[in-house]
């Protein structure tokens, strides 16, 4: 299945009930991708303001564009150490 691969971590994976999903989208920004993800996993919505995103392993802003085959990571506030 082609599309944007979305990985979820920590509390976001918990809320979504999955660690990975594929969203059929092409050339959309992260801000545009979010509603598609939240529609599938409504329990994620309350976390929106706390989340950061990475595209292919690097932090990315909401206006970053993603394409089929890209890997988007949904990152709750980090808590290492």
């Amino acid at each position, binding site marked *: 299945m082609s599309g944007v691969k979305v990985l979820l971590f920590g509390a976001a994976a918990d809320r979504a009930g999955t660690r990975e999903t594929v969203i059929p989208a092409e050339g959309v920004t992260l801000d545009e991708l979010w509603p598609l993800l939240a529609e599938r996993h409504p329990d994620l919505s309350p976390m929106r303001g706390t989340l950061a995103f990475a595209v292919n392993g690097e932090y990315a802003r909401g206006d970053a564009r993603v394409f089929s085959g890209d890997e988007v990571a949904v*990152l709750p506030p980090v808590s*290492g150490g």
Partner: protein
Amino acid sequence: MFAIVEGPIDVGAVISAAQRPDCGAISTFVGTTRVDESEGASVEYLEYEAYRPMADRKLEEIGAEIRERWDVRQVSIVHRAGRVDPGEASVAIVVASPRRGPAFEASRYAIERIKEVVPIWKREVWSDGYVWVGSQVGTRERVDLP
């Protein structure tokens, strides 16, 4: 050396590996898992999750940032993933420098940056449920969910 490891961190080995004749100081920071208690419940263990390989790369970037700022000759950061029992080392930072000042400052910088940018998450597993630290999402009844 930058590593994310599943098993216990051999802190002594990380320090030994940083000893160099051109350095007069090795500063070591070891973060250990602390047991909190509240209202009759307590933390049984912690569980760390990392987004790899991004987390590995971010550790290396912190090392590069340190080398830009201070005269250090060796930086090692080892972070645990998976289950970590109370009192165990969850992270070890070892910095070798010709002088003690940069070694102290750089090791402090490293732990602060880890807590800002490295995609690692910690889950406290309590006797009555769990909590994702930082998100306050979990199964403990007393936790205020967003």
